[in-house]
């Protein structure tokens, strides 16, 4: 649905996006990267606000720039918090709903539906100028989904939301994806993104650094051995057995108690498939199992800081 082919975007002599090629076709995709990575530029190109300097950007097979045919099926929730402060939430969503092509008969009820969906019914008749950051975020999401888009682009949707709000917005995004909406969202809150998707596009200094599932990406980072933490009543004999495996590089104990061992491996898949066998054979009592390297934070850290 969204396709970038060697897309680059320059702002004068500064490069915003540098030769990016990627495809977003289903489910939820998280666009990650530090500030200045080019996330917002990419989103602005996908939503038809900016044109690529070189290369191409297509959505539903068409160029999105000023293209109503694409924009009809696309929803966008921008990052900045500035809105029409003199309008009420209802007026704001109504105007943008009408501009999205919703018929006058359905407009009022549809506005009510989406406002309720984002949990803003109580404040929708108040002026936006008096809204908190979280309320602004919710009303922005409401305008983005009012026309039931096939693709929904959210730039930092979790910013300014309290933990409850994040959970609610997260649930909303998941439900949209469940209905078949393709969601592309950017965020800095990595653990929240992780709860929404494992599919990421990682950008850094305008370049696309990695794309795919977190686990796939992690498995390709051979420079950094994969760490696995195992909690066990007596970890030393287990560690000894594990070190016999050819793909286990090292084992490290937690302080003096030896109730936890952290092993490093370059072949996590093989490790995971043989690990139950080793445990069963040795009769070890494993009480916990964890991989700190399988999370988004560590992938992000590895790729961006190295």
């Amino acid at each position, binding site marked *: 649905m969204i396709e970038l082919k060697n897309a680059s975007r320059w702002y004068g002599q500064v490069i915003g996006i540098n030769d990016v090629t990627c495809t977003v076709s289903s489910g939820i995709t998280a666009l990650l990267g530090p500030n200045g990575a080019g996330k917002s530029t990419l989103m602005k190109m996908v939503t038809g606000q900016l044109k690529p300097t070189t290369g191409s950007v297509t959505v539903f097979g068409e160029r999105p720039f000023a293209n109503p045919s694409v924009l009809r099926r696309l929803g966008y929730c921008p990052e900045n918090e500035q809105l029409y*402060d003199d309008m009420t939430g209802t007026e704001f969503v109504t105007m943008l709903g009408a501009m999205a092509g919703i018929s006058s008969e359905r407009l009022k009820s549809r506005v009510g539906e989406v406002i309720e969906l984002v949990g803003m019914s109580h404040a929708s008749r*108040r*002026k936006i*100028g*008096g809204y908190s950051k979280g309320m602004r975020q919710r009303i922005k999401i409401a305008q983005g989904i009012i026309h039931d888009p096939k693709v929904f682009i959210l730039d930092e949707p979790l910013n300014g939301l309290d933990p409850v709000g994040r959970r609610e917005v997260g649930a909303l995004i998941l439900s949209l994806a469940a209905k078949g909406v393709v969601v592309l969202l950017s965020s800095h809150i990595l653990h929240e993104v992780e709860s929404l998707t494992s599919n990421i596009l990682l950008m850094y200094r305008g370049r696309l650094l990695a794309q795919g599932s977190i686990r796939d990406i992690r498995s390709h980072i051979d420079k950094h051995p994969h760490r696995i933490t195992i909690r066990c009543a007596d970890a030393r004999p287990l560690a000894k057995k594990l070190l016999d495996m050819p793909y286990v590089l090292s084992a490290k104990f937690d302080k003096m108690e030896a109730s936890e061992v952290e092993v490093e491996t370059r072949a996590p898949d093989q490790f995971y498939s043989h690990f139950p066998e080793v445990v069963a054979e040795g009769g070890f009592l494993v009480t916990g199992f964890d991989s700190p390297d399988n999370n988004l934070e560590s992938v992000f850290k590895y790729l961006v800081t190295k």
Partner: protein
Amino acid sequence: MAEIPTAGGSPSPIADLSYRGYDGVLEVRRARWWIIAQSSIRLTRLKKGFWVLVSLSAFPFVIMGAQMFFASRMPGSGSGNGGGLPSGPSAVMSMVFGATYGGQFYTAFTQQGFLLFVLAIMAGSGSIAADNQANALLVYLAKPITKVDYLVGKWMGVFLLIAGVAAAPAVLLYLYCLVSYSAEGFFSKDPGLLLRVIGAAAVSAAIHASLLVGFSAWSKTPRMAGAVYAGFYFVSAIVSSAVWGISTGGRDTEGILLRHLNVSGLIEGIAQNIYGVPQTIVSWRNEGLPEILTVDPPSLGIMLLLGGAVSLLGILFARAKIRAVEVVRG
């Protein structure tokens, strides 16, 4: 080999890349406003439009200089009329604009007036309004600076720019005249002209800066501040002109003070006193050619009082609005 900074000061081959606290002296600067003024000036200097206006503002002085140059090269030109102005083809212009060097400088200054007004809008409309828009006052006033430091910094940021742009071409023309026409009495007949040039530029800058910080502080966006100031500038000119017309029946030599009761009038009235040139009015009262009337400039005392009051009002208005709170409107 250079010594590598290490954690805890102990020698180590590994560099300490962890956070380093500031261990210098935290001094309270005396001119805290200067930091804010510098930042305003830097922001304006980066705008292309600023340099366009700087160039255009210099134009009246360039023309005046060219006119003097060609006039002095004409056959028969010499120490000529009045205060040492070269005679020749500039005679008609001299008749209209005043026959002294001071008169010529004043004329160029008034021609520059509209451009200085536009420049003031560019430099000053966003001075506080942009901070209001971004809620940046919270950040400024959380630093060890007072409301007065902030206000003085913003005011100086606008004032220095306008004064600089107004004075620079005039000072350059002054230097040109000093080199070229000293023999014709340029300096000896009016030794204080340089001070007059700088003084007039400062007056213009002070009035624009004071009013603009006032309008800017009460606006949510720079655009709004600029539009309101432009409205005020023109409406005050229209109203004072109309009131003058009503009260004098359009008699040119009467009600000079009334004609100056507006932003540009105040600036010109004070500048005219500083330059010490009479008010020249082109009148069409009689049929045929226009008549050039000369009247005394408006009273300096009253002009200064009014200019000062207007400027003070602008600053006080701004002061009343500068608050370190995030404004949320319901």
